[in-house]
């Protein structure tokens, strides 16, 4: 999901910067660096997918298109595909409607608290789906704050607002999730778009509206389309939100794959669904890659300082206030509701018929440390926290170990001088291959693991490493994406300057590359950690029942009745939210340069 500015200081064409070792050696070195990542992808991405393929297309060992054909003719499957597309389109349009005014505000105006707004908007993006689902449950659910307030107001004991298990709840959660993508992708691009272009149109006689539609909008279009497509992909593969907020009435492809696998154990149908899903997301991802390439096309981009102005009229301030207020309400309210609710005791059901009594309590948190006999856990629920942290640490290590050589190979081979034209296909081809896991849904990945590693030759189902490996697959593209811009940003002359001052190549890497990408490594590591902590789709299929992670424990609590279970789900969600929010805020403060990448 590349989104970066061109190098800020273009080098003179004939400078030393272009002179490097011959391309052959650059390619050989790149392949050497890539050996491990490619092996990893072959074993843990391609092999599981091929296993699904085999199961879907040839369950008895020979080609059999019956499951696919049955699926194509099945009215339920058609409804699922139709709903998946429909809700994704709707969510995307609504997200754009909410995000674009914010993007404009962030791009063109400079105001106090903008950095905080940006950082806050990033928080939902790393929130685990289950936390988001639980948060919306705590806000708009039958026992959520809004209904509690309305019940107290109208003195009734039936919740007046029935948003749970409706399309509305799903859409709301999707907007909450993805608004930050629009803010970032469009806002960042817009912020660096030279306002003099619109100015030139004004001078040539265009009024404000026409300058916007004839100049600004066409220039922004690739960024808007790229953001929309990315939002669409995320909505299309949405899993936890649909499962928890949609209830049994709604199923996307992703949810259906999960149900077919876990509830019905109908693996061939699940595989056929996965194939459909895979084909769609791959098509969307390819489209996205093409669009984002156009975003990086040369445009007269300017540093932010030249493109922004203070809010100096009361109308501008009012509009900014409305936009910021709306965004904050959308982004902060559910999370605040979640945190607040996890500390609140509600006594409504028994005894009194009227309004609920509320009070502060730590009971839900205390309960996490208790191992009840009737609990499905063999250990106290809090053990899930330990499991998650362990898995996340392993994922962080694995992701960095694989991403660092990958990013190095991708960026270094690109700087070679000879045969530049013949290198670009090699690099772009690799770049897309390495990004493939990004376009593959997590549930499909989980299903692939389940199918591939449950039987010989690679019967690793019981291995404790399987879960970190699955998470690494999900995190890997993100980590590569945070490392490569930093590496690409290191001008080759710095390494040459080090060499000319007597530093060996290894020493130059230590002295120049490592310190310069240190922050990016931390950002990538934090991403991997956060992704692993919140990962639910693949985990739901891969995790063993005796080794639950936090999201699995939350889902188990949410799907069981009773205030205590619900409270514990919220308490665990709050813990997860705090960790993830801390992570993303740390990333924000570490983010290198003006324009980040997703």
């Amino acid at each position, binding site marked *: 999901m590349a989104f970066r500015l061109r190098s800020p*200081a273009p*080098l*003179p*064409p*004939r*400078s*030393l910067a272009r*002179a*490097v*070792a*011959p391309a052959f050696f650059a390619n050989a070195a790149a392949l050497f660096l890539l050996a491990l990542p490619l092996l990893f992808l072959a074993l843990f991405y391609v092999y599981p997918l091929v296993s699904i393929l085999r199961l879907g297309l040839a369950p008895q060992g020979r080609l059999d298109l019956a499951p696919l054909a049955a699926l194509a003719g099945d009215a339920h499957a058609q409804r699922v595909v139709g709903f998946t597309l429909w809700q994704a389109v709707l969510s995307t349009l609504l997200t754009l409607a909410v995000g674009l005014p914010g993007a404009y505000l962030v791009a063109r105006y400079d105001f106090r608290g903008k950095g905080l707004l940006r950082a806050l908007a990033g928080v939902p993006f790393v929130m685990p789906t289950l936390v988001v689902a639980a948060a919306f449950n705590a806000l708009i659910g039958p026992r959520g704050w809004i209904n509690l307030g309305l019940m107290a107001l109208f003195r009734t004991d039936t919740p007046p607002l029935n948003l749970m298990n409706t399309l509305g709840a799903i859409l709301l959660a999707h907007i909450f999730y993805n608004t930050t993508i629009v803010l970032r992708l469009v806002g960042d691009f817009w912020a660096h778009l030279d306002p003099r272009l619109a100015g030139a149109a004004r001078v040539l006689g265009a009024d404000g509206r026409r300058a916007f539609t004839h100049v600004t909008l066409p220039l922004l279009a690739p960024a808007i389309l790229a953001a929309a497509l990315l939002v669409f992909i995320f909505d299309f593969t949405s899993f936890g939100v649909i499962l928890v907020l949609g209830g049994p009435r709604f199923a996307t492809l992703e949810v259906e794959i999960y149900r077919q696998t876990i509830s019905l154990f109908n693996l061939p149908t699940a595989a056929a669904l996965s194939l459909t899903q895979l084909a769609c997301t791959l098509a969307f991802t390819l489209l996205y890659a093409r669009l984002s390439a156009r975003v990086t096309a040369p445009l007269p981009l300017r540093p932010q300082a030249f493109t922004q102005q203070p809010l100096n009229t009361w109308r501008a301030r009012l509009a900014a206030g409305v936009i910021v207020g709306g965004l904050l309400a959308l982004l902060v309210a559910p999370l605040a509701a979640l945190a607040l609710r996890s500390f609140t005791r509600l006594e409504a059901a028994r005894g009194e018929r009227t309004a609920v009594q509320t009070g502060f309590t730590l009971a839900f948190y205390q309960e996490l440390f208790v191992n009840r006999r009737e609990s499905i856990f063999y250990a106290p629920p809090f053990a899930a926290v330990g499991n998650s942290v362990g898995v996340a640490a392993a994922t962080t290590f694995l992701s960095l170990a694989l991403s660092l050589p990958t990013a190095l190979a991708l960026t270094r081979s690109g700087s070679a*001088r*000879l*045969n530049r034209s013949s290198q670009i296909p090699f690099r772009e081809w690799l770049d897309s291959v390495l990004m493939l896991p990004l376009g593959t849904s997590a549930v499909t990945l989980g299903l692939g693991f389940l199918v591939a590693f449950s039987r010989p030759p690679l019967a690793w189902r019981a291995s404790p490493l399987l879960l970190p490996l699955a998470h690494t697959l999900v995190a890997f593209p993100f980590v590569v994406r945070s490392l490569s811009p930093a590496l690409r940003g290191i*001008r080759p*002359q*710095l390494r*040459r*300057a*080090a*060499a*000319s*001052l*007597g*530093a*060996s*190549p290894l*020493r*130059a890497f230590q*002295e*120049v590359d490592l*310190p*310069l990408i240190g922050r990016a490594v931390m950002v990538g590591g934090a991403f991997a950690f956060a992704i692993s902590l919140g990962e639910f789709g693949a985990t739901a299929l891969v995790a063993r029942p005796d080794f639950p992670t936090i999201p699995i424990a939350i889902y188990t609590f949410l799907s069981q009745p009773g205030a205590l279970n619900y409270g514990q789900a919220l308490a665990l969600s709050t813990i997860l939210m705090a960790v993830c929010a801390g992570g993303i805020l740390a990333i924000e403060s570490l983010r290198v340069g003006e324009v980040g990448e997703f």
Partner: protein
Amino acid sequence: MLELVSLSKSFGDGGGLDDVCLTVNRGEIVSLLGPSGCGKSTLLALIAGLETPDAGEVRWDGESLAGLPPHRRSFGLMFQDYALFPHRDVFDNVAFGLRMQNAPETEVALRVREALALVNLSGFERRDVNTLSGGEAQRVALARSLCPRPRLLMLDEPLGALDRTLRDALLDELRGMLRAFGGRAQTALYVTHDQQEAFALADRVALMNAGRIVQVGAPEEVYNSPASPFVARFLGLTNLVEAAPDADSAFTTAIGRFRLTSRASRSTPHASRLTLLLRPDCARLSGSANRLRVRILERSFRGVYTRLLTQPERGPHLIFDFPPQPLPQVGETVDLFLDPERITVLQGE
């Protein structure tokens, strides 16, 4: 002593080198002068060991450096855009080379301070290099490349990124800095496309064009007897007319017949194509030899001289510079007399 022996390097996209030979003596400053794209930077990359030549070799004191990686050559290289390490402060940038030699920290501190004093940046030790002005960054880069006392210092357009005033000021200092550091004269190879810089700094100038060295010599020598019309044109001597020799030291051209001094014409090679270089200061308003009728097209005052753009009856525009005196007005047609001493004959066209 640096010797370049028949260095060749080809690239698919041009900018290669073809049979380059050059010697730089110890303590000497040689300037590589040429238009952009002539192969200057490629040559530096070959000497530094960042590139491998297709043919020929680089020698130091008679010993071939083939196969020796850049960091073991003890050659300094100052980059056009300085390439200061953005994650290190001024002191640590300058100290980098010494630390690569594992010099003791006390010596590092001493020599960094010495280098910074030389470039007039004492007190800048702990400054963030990202906050330096262009001129300051340039000095830090110079100090950094000088500090490890390289046996050869290569400077790649070191003043190229600076504005004109700063450039002139630094040009004056640079020669002194190269001469004074560490109590010895620094052997240096200075790459530039600016003839003023090359002439002001260098003991010898090597002119490059299209991957070849076309003339080597002291600045005066190169300026006074350019080896080819290309060199003349590159040095800003643009009054060039194709010529054919006839009897008694005279040459026939499209704009008239000119007589040279016998000394100038005796050295004339008998090549098929010859070009006369009429130096801008060769024109007089009175005299007898080499009369040339021109119309004045433009007149511009340049301080110590006034420049006239003129049109002879046939042929290209010619430019002549005159010391302060009453001069004809624009539009007038006058007779000019060209001093035979200031006309040179060149091979080629």
